[in-house]
């Protein structure tokens, strides 16, 4: 959850074999003469923390990706890829019945659930761990 709320936290990506071997290279210049000489001289590896600009020459015809959609994509992907670490090993206690009545009803919910959930968790934690 820390990584979701604060993406600036450095993660241990070298522990993930699916991306540990994936190294992207970004070219410094687009010079055809240099391209023939290979990538080594004018490229560098893309690593976590690299900041670059998305720029368009015509902001009416060639629109940039919406920043909010990139934020949403990043949040969803961080949650989904972090979810594996949170699965409880006691799956035998779970009820896997496909009972539709168990699904929470979302109709009519006007409140920001993530905010409500955060408030609820804060209250729960503070109640449980308050010094008595």
């Amino acid at each position, binding site marked *: 959850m820390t990584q979701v709320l604060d993406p600036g936290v450095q993660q241990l990506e070298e522990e993930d074999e699916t*991306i540990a071997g994936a190294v992207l290279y970004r070219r410094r210049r687009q010079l055809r003469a240099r391209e023939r000489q290979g990538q080594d001289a004018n490229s560098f590896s893309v690593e976590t923390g690299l900041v670059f600009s998305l720029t368009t020459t015509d902001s009416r015809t060639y629109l940039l990706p919406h920043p909010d959609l990139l934020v949403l994509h990043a949040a969803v992907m961080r949650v989904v890829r972090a979810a594996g670490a949170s699965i409880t090993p006691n799956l035998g206690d779970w009820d896997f019945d496909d009972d539709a009545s168990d699904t929470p009803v979302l109709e009519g919910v006007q409140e920001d659930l993530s905010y409500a959930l955060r408030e609820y968790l804060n209250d729960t934690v503070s109640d449980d761990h308050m010094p008595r």
Partner: protein
Amino acid sequence: MCVVSLSTTPVVVAHIVPYSVGRDPRVLEEAMPDLFRFLTFLAGPSVVRELEEYLLSTDARGQTRINRLENLICLSPDNHDRFGHGSFVLEPVGDPLAGLRDDGQLWSYEVRFSWVPENKPPQATRQVLF
């Protein structure tokens, strides 16, 4: 040109919100997996409503706006695959609206590249699940 590697060929146009969401179900409640409930819990109902209005509302020809340019980004095929799996994410840095020109058009903003490690469940859990 791929925005990450700057390679020029080949380049594909990748959807940020998947094309399948806007092509087939057209309403988020019918998308599988259940994006509607997931996003409602994660981001809140108001975000889901705005997202549906922004990308899934239909135009005069009855097509959704899932292909609007704001939902597209140029990537190499390899990076398209990684982006789709969430191996890396691009997050805007600071206030993207600072790049607004006087005419209200967004012409530039900075993003931060991050690898996102995939956390696999413990071995004991995997044996139960799969």
